[in-house]
C-alpha cells in the first residue's frame, strides 16, 4: 500500500520542531509499524537525509521503549497494543498517518520522537520498592499469598513504563504509572510495611517532576497498552490521604 506520513521533526531539545510530510510506497500489510518506519529511514539515509529518531528495543511490547502518538492516540488505534506491536494491516492504502512524540512538560523532547522519561525513574527511586537487602530471605513458601491478590498485583506490575498514560492525559498526570507501582506493592504482604510512606513519597515526587494532577478523565486507562485499570488510582489516592492525615497507623 501507499501512505502519506506526517512526522514531527525536531533536531534537538532547543529546536522549534515542525511536522514534515513523506510519501511511502510498497508498504506490506505484514510489516509492523516500526518496520514501516525502518523502511522510511533506509530511504532517507540513502538520500543522505537524517532518519527519523524514535525509541524502540524489544519490539515485543514489553520494554516500554517505543512511544509515539499515532493519529492523535498514544501507540495508535488498536487497544492494548504498543506501537511496536501495531501492524500495517490496521491501515489501508492511501491513508495519511500523523506521528508525534509524547507531549508533556515532564517528558522534554530530545530529538524527533524521542523524549526524556527519566522522571519516571525518579518516581520509583523515591519509594517504588520494598526495602529489603539481598541476603537470606525466608523461604518463598512461608509467605502464602492468595492467588487473587497475587493476580491483582501482577495486573498492576504489568506496567511497562512507556508513558502513554501521561501522553493521553489532558493534565499530563502520571497517576496511572505511579498507582500501578504503588498498587502492585500494596496488594502484597511484602509491601505493607512501607505502604503509606511509599504512596506519599511517590506522589510528592510526581508533583515535583512537573506532572499534572489527576482529574479523573481516565484517558490513561484507555491508552494503556497493558490495560492497567484506573482503579489503582483510587487505591493510591486513599493511601495518600491516609498517609498525609497521619491516620495510616
Amino acid at each position, binding site marked *: 500500500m501507499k501512505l502519506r506520513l506526517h512526522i514531527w521533526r525536531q*533536531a*534537538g531539545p532547543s529546536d522549534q520542531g515542525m511536522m514534515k510530510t513523506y510519501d511511502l510506497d510498497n508498504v*506490506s500489510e*505484514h*510489516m*509492523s509499524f516500526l518496520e514501516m518506519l*525502518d*523502511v522510511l529511514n*533506509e530511504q*532517507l*539515509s*540513502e538520500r*543522505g537525509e*537524517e*532518519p527519523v*529518531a524514535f*525509541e524502540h*528495543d*524489544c*519490539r*515485543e*511490547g*514489553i*520494554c*516500554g521503549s517505543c512511544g509515539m502518538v499515532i493519529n492523535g492516540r498514544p501507540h495508535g488505534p488498536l487497544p492494548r497494543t504498543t506501537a511496536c*506491536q501495531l*501492524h500495517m494491516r490496521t491501515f489501508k492504502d492511501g491513508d495519511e498517518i500523523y506521528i508525534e512524540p509524547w507531549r508533556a512538560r515532564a517528558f522534554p523532547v*530530545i*530529538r524527533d520522537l524521542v523524549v*526524556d*522519561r*527519566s522522571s519516571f*525513574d525518579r518516581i*520509583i*527511586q523515591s519509594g*517504588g*520498592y*520494598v*526495602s*529489603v537487602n*539481598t*541476603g*537470606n*530471605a*525466608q*523461604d*518463598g*513458601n512461608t*509467605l*502464602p499469598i*492468595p*492467588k487473587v491478590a*497475587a493476580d491483582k*498485583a*501482577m495486573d498492576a*506490575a*504489568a506496567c511497562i513504563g512507556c508513558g502513554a498514560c501521561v501522553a493521553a492525559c489532558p493534565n499530563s498526570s502520571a497517576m496511572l504509572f505511579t498507582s500501578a507501582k504503588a498498587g*502492585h506493592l500494596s496488594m*502484597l504482604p*511484602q509491601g505493607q510495611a512501607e505502604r503509606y510512606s511509599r504512596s506519599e513519597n511517590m506522589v510528592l515526587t510526581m508533583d515535583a517532576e512537573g506532572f499534572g494532577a489527576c482529574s479523573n478523565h481516565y484517558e490513561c486507562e484507555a491508552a494503556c497498552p497493558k490495560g492497567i485499570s484506573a482503579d489503582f488510582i483510587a487505591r493510591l489516592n486513599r493511601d495518600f490521604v491516609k498517609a498525609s492525615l497521619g491516620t495510616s497507623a
Partner: protein
Amino acid sequence: MELHSHIPSGPLERKWDSHKANLKLVNPANKRKFSVIVVGTGLAGASAAATLAELGYNVTAITYHDSPRRAHSIAAQGGINAAKNYQNDGDSVWRLFYDTIKGGDFRSREANVYRLSEVSANIIDQCVAQGVPFAREYGGYLANRSFGGAQVSRTFYARGQTGQQLLLGAYQALSRQIGLGKVKMLNRKDMMDVVVVDGKARGVVIRDMRTGVIETVMGDAVVLATGGYGNVFYLSTNAKASNVTATFRAYKKGAAFANPCFTQIHPTCIPQSGDYQSKLTLMSESLRNDGRIWVPKNHGDHRAPGDIPEQDRDYYLERKYPSFGNLSPRDIASRAAKEACDDGRGVGPGGKGVYLDFSDAINRLGAKVIEDRYGNLFEMYERITGENPYEVPMRIYPAVHYTMGGLWVDYNLMSNIPGLFVLGEANFSDHGANRLGASALMQGLADGYFVIPYTIGGYFAKGGLSSVSSDTPEARQAVEQAAAKVQALLQINGKRTSQSFHRALGKIMWDKCGMARNAQGLQEALQEIPALREEFWSNLTLPGSGEQLNQSLDHASRVADFMEFAELMVRDALQREESCGGHFREEYQTEDGEALRNDADFAYVAAWGYGGEGAAPTLHREPLEFENVELATRSYK
C-alpha cells in the same frame, strides 16, 4: 596468556561454602573506598549494582538505555528454574546440576554449575521478598511449570512476563540505592572500551549518546553485564540494540573470549514474513507443555491443518524422542524442525515452519485454562500474524536466541584481566554448548545477587590497587581511540547503510555458521566476512553528526564490532571438529543424524586471545574435568 579456573579443591558440594569461608573480607568501613563500575542493568547488572551498593561499595552503573528497566532481560517470558522441590517430584540441587551439565552437552565446568544450582533456591526467596508477583496456586503457594530438558517441574513464573517481573524487582532494588545516593546511574551512555592500567581493569570509556561527549569513568573494578551477541545474525529474538561491543572491546584489551561458536537456536519462534523483517519473536518454550509439534506426513500435503487427519500427521518429536517428546531440549527440537522443513514438509510461506498445535489441550482442559496459562502469548501471536491460535495451530520456526559463549571467567567470575568481572549472558560460564530453558534468568541473578558480592571482596582484599585518574595515559589513549572510531565512521561518505551491512553479515552467519555448519561453509565465511568488512569501511553512509543523538551512528559503531567478531565465531566453529549442543557440524553426526560429540579431543573450553591488528587470534584450551558425572551420550529418547 595464562588461564586459571581457580576452582576450589574439595568435594563438589563443599566447594562454594569453603571458598566463601576462605575469601578475605573487606572491612565494612573500607568498602566505600572501593569504587565499582557496573556496565549493563539487565538481570545480572542490576542485581549486582544493587547488592554491591547495599554492601557499601561505591557503585557507578552504566547503560545505553534511557532507563535501567529497559534492558533486554525484560523480554524473557517463560520462567526461572530453582531446585526447590516444592512439587515433591524428585528435584534436588544435584538433579538441577546434572540436568544443566547434561543439557549443556558436557561442555561446562562442574563446579560453576553446581554453585548455580545451589544458590538457585535463594534467588526465588529474594525475589519473593522484593515483591515479585510469581504465579501462585489457590492455596497461596508458589506455582511451577515444566521446561525442556527436565523431567521435574521446577520453573517459577509470572504469567508470560517472568523476565519483566524479575528485572523490575532488581530495578527497584537498584532504584532504591540510586535514591539513597549509593549508586550513580548513567543512562544513555554507550560503553566503547575498557581502560587497563598496570594490567588491571580500572575504567571504561563511554560516549554520551545525546551529546557525543566521550570520557572515562575510572574505578577499582569493572563488571561487565552487557548481555549476549545473538544479533551478529541480524535476525534474532534479542532486543534490537543488543550487541557485542563491550565484551569484544574487552577481548581486544586482552580478555579471553570463550566458545564464541556456542549459540542457541530456539525452536519456537514466529517465522519470518518478509525482507523488511527487523527481528524475530519468540513464543515461549513453556508452550511446549501443552502444544504438540507436527508437520504433514506426506510431501505436498497442502490441506489446511484442520483438514489433515491424525494418520497423515507426523508428531516428529514424540516419534523420535518418546520420553521427552515435545519437551526435548532446544538444540534437538530446533534441528528436528529444520530437518522436517529441509525434507520439504514444512508449512506456511516458503515451507519454513512447523505447527504447534493446542487443539488437544483445548479439548482436554478447555480454552479458559489455556488462556490462563498462555493468554498473552496467544494474543501476541495473533497480533503479529493475524491468525488466531485458539482456532488454527501456530506456525513456528527456529531462530537465534541466546549465546552460551562469552568472555572467559574463572570461578570468581573474573576474566583473565584482573579486576574485570563478567556476569550474565556476557560470560561463558554455566551453560556449556546448550542452555536449558529458564536457566539464563537463574544464572544472571545468581551471578549478580549471590556470587559477585562475595568474590569481588576477595579481589579487593588482596590489595595492590593504587589510585588512578582519567589523566593516566592509558585512559587518555582509550578516549582518543574511541573518538577516532567515531570520526572514521562519520567520514566514509559511502552509499550503503549500516542496516544493510548488518543484514548482509547476518545472512553469511545464518547460512554458514547457523543451525548446521560444515568446514566448507565456514571456510567460505572466512573469505566473505573480511570482504564485507572492507566494503563497510569504504562504502558506509552515515547521515548526521556525532554531537547529538544519532541512532545511525550508534548502530554503525556496533556493526563495526560485529564485523570483526563474526570472524572469531567462525574460527571457533571451524576448530571444534565435533557436534555438541547448539554446535552441529554436519561432518560429525551419528547414522540417525544425532550430534556426535568427541570427548577425547574436544572436552575443553576454547578461549581465544586477541593477536593484534591483522594477526590471527590464539587458541587456549582449558580442559574440562568431570569428577562427579559420567560423560554420557545425551539421550532424550
